[in-house]
């Protein structure tokens, strides 16, 4: 049954990807005015307009352009960056792991902070701890990440004479230095997601704690730790898994800001730079990778959800 469900979900993911690829492909062509003229005049990416159009493949019918682009993308060829002249796949191969690492660290912080605080908040409902946790969650959701990131970088520099290193350290040169450079931006990026996770965790656990089987567990005289962690948490966690999938998209979009503030050469910063440089093939390539990542993660989340809760398959 799980295999059938997985197959169905996989089939749904395909049209999602096709629609997303059409949107990604069309967006740069919907920009008002002749974008080729603008790119030429601003950045001199080619010697004349005709060469520029040929470089972008705009001298062919639109459906041919789209099919050609998708066909090459399926073979791992996302075209060439107009700014650096390098294949976009090579640029992404260098930058995608940086963003995935940052996103991974952020996700770990989101779960490590959000789940325990949500549990405490639910178990100690309407206590001081609950109010503090809920207030903190609202703060975490409402404080803009770019502001928090800037403060965390600038204030220690002014008052403590310390700021995060501006030099990106590859894993091969210094493994610990490499990992440690993701901790601060990962924590900050994870804060907003942690707030969402915490709020959902609290709500779900409160609901589960009111179920009859939990009351039975209390009546049997089980310890609080056992009732909450063993009997309630697993069921309460199931919906939380779905929100973690949604958080992946949020975290990926957050990398644009945090990679810029912390000098990490990831995909978010590459997107930011490509937009600044009007490097449309790069923008298309990055967006396609982001969309594919999000669709894939959500597919995995759906499969995990089905595995955790067999009822979902029907």
């Amino acid at each position, binding site marked *: 049954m799980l295999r059938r469900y997985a197959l169905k979900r996989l089939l749904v993911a395909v049209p999602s990807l096709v629609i997303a690829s059409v949107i990604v492909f069309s967006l740069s062509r919907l920009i008002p005015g002749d974008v080729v003229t603008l790119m030429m005049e601003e950045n001199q990416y080619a010697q004349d307009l005709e060469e520029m159009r040929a470089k972008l493949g705009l001298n062919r019918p639109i459906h041919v352009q789209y099919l050609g682009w998708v066909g090459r993308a399926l073979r791992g060829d996302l075209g060439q960056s107009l700014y650096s002249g*390098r294949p976009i796949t090579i640029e992404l191969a260098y930058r995608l792991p940086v963003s995935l690492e940052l996103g991974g660290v952020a996700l770990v912080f989101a779960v490590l902070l959000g789940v325990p605080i949500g549990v405490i908040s639910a178990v100690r409902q309407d206590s001081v701890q609950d109010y503090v946790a809920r207030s903190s969650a609202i703060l975490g959701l409402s404080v803009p990440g770019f502001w928090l990131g*800037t403060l965390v*970088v600038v204030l220690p520099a002014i008052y403590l004479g310390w700021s995060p290193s*501006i030099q990106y350290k590859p894993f091969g040169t210094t493994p610990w230095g490499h990992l440690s450079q993701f901790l601060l931006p990962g924590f900050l990026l994870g804060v907003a997601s942690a707030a969402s996770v915490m709020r959902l965790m609290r709500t779900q656990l409160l609901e589960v704690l009111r179920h009859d089987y939990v009351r039975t567990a209390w009546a049997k005289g089980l310890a609080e730790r056992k009732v909450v962690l063993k009997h309630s948490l697993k069921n309460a966690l199931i919906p939380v898994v779905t929100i973690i999938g949604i958080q992946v998209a949020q975290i990926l979009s957050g990398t644009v800001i945090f990679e810029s*503030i912390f000098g990490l*050469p990831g995909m978010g910063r590459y997107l930011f730079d490509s937009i600044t440089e009007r490097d449309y093939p790069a923008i298309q390539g990055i967006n396609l990778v982001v969309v594919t990542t999000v669709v894939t993660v959500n597919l995995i989340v759906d499969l995990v959800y089905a595995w955790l809760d067999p009822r979902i398959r029907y």
Partner: protein
Amino acid sequence: MINLSFTHSRLLKHKAGPNVKLGVFEYEGDLAERWNQQDDTTYVFKLRPGVKWHAKAPLNGRELNAEDVKYTFDRFLTIKGNANAHMMSSLAKVDAVDKYTVKFTLSAPNAWFLDFLSNPMALCIVAPEAVEKFTDLKKPEAVIGTGPWILDKHEPKVRTVFVRNPDYFVKGLPYIERVEAIDFPDPAARFAAFITGQIDAGPEFPGMMLRHQDVKTAKERRQNLRMVTFPSNVMTHVGMRSDMPPFNDVRVRKALSLALDRKAIAEATVPLGWVKNPPVPAALAAWALPVEQLGEGAKYYEYDPKEARRLLKEAGHGNGFSTTLTYHNYQSQELIDAVQMALKFWKDVGVEATVVEKPYAAYFASAYVGKYEGMMMGPQFPALDPYNFIAQYLASEPKNQSHVNDPVLADLIQSSTRTLDEKKRRQIIHDIQRHAAKQVYYLRLHSGIYYAALDPALKDFGPNLGYDYGGRLMAAWWDR
């Protein structure tokens, strides 16, 4: 351009060092050992013997020769889409006379020719083999020059690393073994890195400057910081369609100038210091005429709304008029504030200007090259020679944003281009500025004061305007 100043050489270069007067760009030989001017249109350069290209394939340390120089200039003149081609518009031909001698023949005398040759923004000498092999010289592997440093690593938008060229043609130079240029997009994080000592020289564009809001904290937090201040050559101005009503009436242009409180705008946007700009920016100290010496034109720099209203009434606009102001914000709060203040001052005298804000590329494709209605406003190209600024008054120039067509100015500018005697040329440039200020074709606004912030251990380094960071760092050394 900045990267090439580390890796490439030019025939001539600007003098650099702590003793060079800021804003003055005297030239000296770079690849050229000596040169002479045979007549008004012929220059002969003798190249230094034994100059080697960087030891990278396909050059592999080959000796530079006159053919390389000829190739560079022929390519410069013929390559499509060269935005700097105008600099060599008077160059008729280049001949490689022998291995170390190059002759330049101009179609007409051009007094700025040697200034253009020494300009760090263009005209570095490239190798034919590199162009043939790589075609696109933007590729890191194609960066093969004869300059003081060799490109070691280039990670686009991350960092660029240069290492000392052991075969550089000036023996013993450069002293600094390695230069790392870090591309760090966030200004606050860049500043934090600077005050915590992670960056040796200032973090802001153009290269080594601090933003005004950061100067005080930088002085407090980074002990013994060496600060050098000098006016910027980035000048914001207002252009007007002087070929169309109502701006074809000089009284209207004068009124708009008198309506502006330039001092208030400057003090609000660049609080730590600014300079008034005549038609040639005050930063180009050797050529700019102080505003007070502009004659009649000087009074239009004053804030006099009463006189502005009188002039508008005299021009038939007693009830004011409506117009548009096209601009791009450059993500600069200072510029946005300046535009808002200008709108307010004009409104005070009855002129209602509606803002047309354009994206960067659209602005450059339109208003920056004179395609707009009414007025435009924005910073100008930070050139190091006065010609780029006076050319804005020539009908044939795309940079003529105000559509100036003034025979007096055209004659004066042509005369300045053909006057080789620098003293006499300076007088003509001053006359141009007086006439231009009197006709108020552009409303030149202030330039801010730059704060160059340097680690005190960096010796024999003198900051200056322009992109020649490699040239200025060449003789610098660390006292650590």
